[in-house]
């Protein structure tokens, strides 16, 4: 047991850098960074609380306030499942401390436990950001007893377990299958994307699944329990607490976690070894040497890193793929969106298809903003260099050139997806020439803007000593801020566009204004990168 605690302590100290940021940070800087993290958490928590409170407005009147809790339990569980699927590939099977951990006189199940526990702690913290404000909102609006707090505490601690277990099993299967192929990274990306799209499709059609279950259920709680036991059990404890159900709830989660550890540890070493095996197929002595410009060579190097880092591709690519899917859906069957919304009891007092047709350029502009800011690639590009960052610092190339090349590489990754989306929308709706020019300009400027923000954040908050790529892409402060900043920019853009259009401003003027503002911000960011970013670049010591 002492060994396990020592290992957990060492692992968590090393892995939870997001909460320490940098060992070398000056005291004042450290408190600023901690303050920023607390501010972000408080902002998210407050937004969730406001949203939950708004939902409770109508639901408490009909005695169904618990539906808010169900909603947040389901949302956090789905998010944890998605994160578990594509993070487990790196967190469990691509760790840099493998040689040390697997050479220690400890059981392989202990190694697995430590790694899954690390994932659990992160998911617990993320889930808490959503669950605690919703629970507080419910507690304020409803007359709750001490059993609510006891059940909620157990729920906060235990609810991440089931999605993590499922995510790890699926992640393990994906790594196991893909490791059989020579191009295993590519296979891992494709299979993971397929799984995530599958989850997306299932949740898009969830209403028919619910209808089927509801037909055979006697109460709402019965529906939830049949749909997803942990959510149903928790809501059951909130509405009608029983100590037996409480103990069963705890026992079931611990048992699921234990069984997963037992089963996965039997094959963990095998999958891990195979995942780390590099298949060498070439013994050709002939090789090509081709001279390229500095920028071209750095962009090619960044592409190589990007396509060989599955968690990086999936994180950035999923939003871009969804952007194209959204454009295709709008193009193929716009009218069905209205009936889709009606399935969720959303009654529209206007013709959605007509509105979309009338404001297609503005809608596309907002979609491009969303796809750009939510797919920030550069927010982890510096951190992913790891110890190889010294290569970049030792070469005779200006830091500005290196930074801008990284930004260009990221923009080039995004551009094809955005242009495909544009073409689909151009084909469906009547865009005039000016609108086409403005949208094409936005398609270049907005990804550039998003990637300049990303690189500026990563230069300010680098994480150069991560155990694996998932820690950088999903659990570093720069990516965290980029994600939430992206959400804020998207919301702000939609708000401004909607407000200006509803006040009667011409569509072309709104689009043109958006492009001009984006160009101005880009210019400011380029100056920032050149003046301050390069200093930050040189200050990063590995």
């Amino acid at each position: 047991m002492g060994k396990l605690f020592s290992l957990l302590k060492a692992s968590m100290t090393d892995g939870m850098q997001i909460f320490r940021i940098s060992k070398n940070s000056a005291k004042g800087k450290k408190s600023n960074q901690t303050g920023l993290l607390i501010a972000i958490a408080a902002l998210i928590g407050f937004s969730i609380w406001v949203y939950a409170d708004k939902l409770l407005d109508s639901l408490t009147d009909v005695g169904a306030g618990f539906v808010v809790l169900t909603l947040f339990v389901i949302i956090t569980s789905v998010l944890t499942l998605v994160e578990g699927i594509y993070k487990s590939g790196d967190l469990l099977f691509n760790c840099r401390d493998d040689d040390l951990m697997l050479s220690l006189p400890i059981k392989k199940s202990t190694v697995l436990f430590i790694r899954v526990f690390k994932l659990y702690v992160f998911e617990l913290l993320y889930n808490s950001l959503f669950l605690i404000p919703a629970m507080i909102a419910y507690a304020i609006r409803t007359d709750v007893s001490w059993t609510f707090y006891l059940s909620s505490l157990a729920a906060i601690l235990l609810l991440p377990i089931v999605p993590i277990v499922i995510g790890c099993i699926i992640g393990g299967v994906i790594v196991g299958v893909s490791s059989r192929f020579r191009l295993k990274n590519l296979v891992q990306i494709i299979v993971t994307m397929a799984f995530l799209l599958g989850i997306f499709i299932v949740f898009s059609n969830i209403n028919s699944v619910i209808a089927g279950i509801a037909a055979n259920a006697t109460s709402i709680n019965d529906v939830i329990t049949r749909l997803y036991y942990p959510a149903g059990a928790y809501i059951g404890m909130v509405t009608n607490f029983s100590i037996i159900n409480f103990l069963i709830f705890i026992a079931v989660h611990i048992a699921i976690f234990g069984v997963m550890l037992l089963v996965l540890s039997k094959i963990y070493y095998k999958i891990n070894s195979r995942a780390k095996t590099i298949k060498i197929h070439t013994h050709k002595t002939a090789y090509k040497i081709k001279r390229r410009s500095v920028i071209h060579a750095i962009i090619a190097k960044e592409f190589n890193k990007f396509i060989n880092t599955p968690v990086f591709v999936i994180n950035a690519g999923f939003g871009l793929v969804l952007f194209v899917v959204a454009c295709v859906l709008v193009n193929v069957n716009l009218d069905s969106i209205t009936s889709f919304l009606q399935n969720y009891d959303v009654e529209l007092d206007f013709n959605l298809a007509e509105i979309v047709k009338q404001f297609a350029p503005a809608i596309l502009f907002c979609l491009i903003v969303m796809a750009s800011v939510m797919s920030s690639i550069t927010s982890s590009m510096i951190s992913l260099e790891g110890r190889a960052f010294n290569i970049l610092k030792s070469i005779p190339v200006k830091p500005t050139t290196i930074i801008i090349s990284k930004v260009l590489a990221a923009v080039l990754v995004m551009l094809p997806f955005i242009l495909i989306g544009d073409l689909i929308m151009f084909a469906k709706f009547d865009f005039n020439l000016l609108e086409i020019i403005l949208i094409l300009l936005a398609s270049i400027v907005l990804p550039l803007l998003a990637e300049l923000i990303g690189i500026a954040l990563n230069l300010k908050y680098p994480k150069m000593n991560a155990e694996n790529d998932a820690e950088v892409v999903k659990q570093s402060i720069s990516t965290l801020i980029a994600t939430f900043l992206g959400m804020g920019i998207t919301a702000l853009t939609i708000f401004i566009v909607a407000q200006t259009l509803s006040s009667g401003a011409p569509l072309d003027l709104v689009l043109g204004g958006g492009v001009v503002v984006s160009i101005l911000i880009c210019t400011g960011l380029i100056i920032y990168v050149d003046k301050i970013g390069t200093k930050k670049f040189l200050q990063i010591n590995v």
Partner: protein
Amino acid sequence: MIEIKNVTKKYGNKTALKNINFDVNNGEIFAFIGHNGAGKTTLIKAITGIHDFDEGEIFINGKSIKTDPIACKKEMAYVPDNPELYENMRAIDYINFICDMYEVPQNVREKNISRYAKTFEMENNLNDTINSFSHGMKQKTALIAALAHDPKVLIMDEPFVGLDPKAVFDMKEIMRAMIKSGKTIFFSTHILDVAEKLCTKVAIIKKGELVKVGSMKAIKGDKSLEKIFLELEK
């Protein structure tokens, strides 16, 4: 030529380098020795422009690494102690990438890559990805990349670690050939026998301070370098 003038580097309250002064002239192989944590890698990273330093100046062929880092870096090549390369690249792509960064002409890079790949017996491995390599093969890849652009100043941190005996022999021959053509070599090492036989000058660093610097002959006299080093460490 490398000129190091009053270089001081601090990590918070800890002084990693204290007022370091010495020159490495053209045509010299200079060994930099010291125990673990003495400050060898810190000074090497300061010379190569990877880390900044608090006081003093470093000149590479008359150019300041502080005010003209790009010009300095163009003159030199750096081989780190632990070759952390771009793991997903093929060795040839990595070497070509470094050549691109130094803007090496096509014919020069073709000639040098072919020559050093043959020397280090890596011709059959250049098409393989670096993550399939052993430590020694990564070290050889880093050496080929460093030598491919024909640097005037070669700076290496523990260059012989992980190399097989033949590669060590070949590396020493390359170093001897380089100084004959007037180039400058500065490297840190713990292998004192090699330093003693190969180098014309030596510096010994202890807790961030230079305790000895000069020609190999003057420093060791009739004793072995190992004996001198151990006496200084007491």
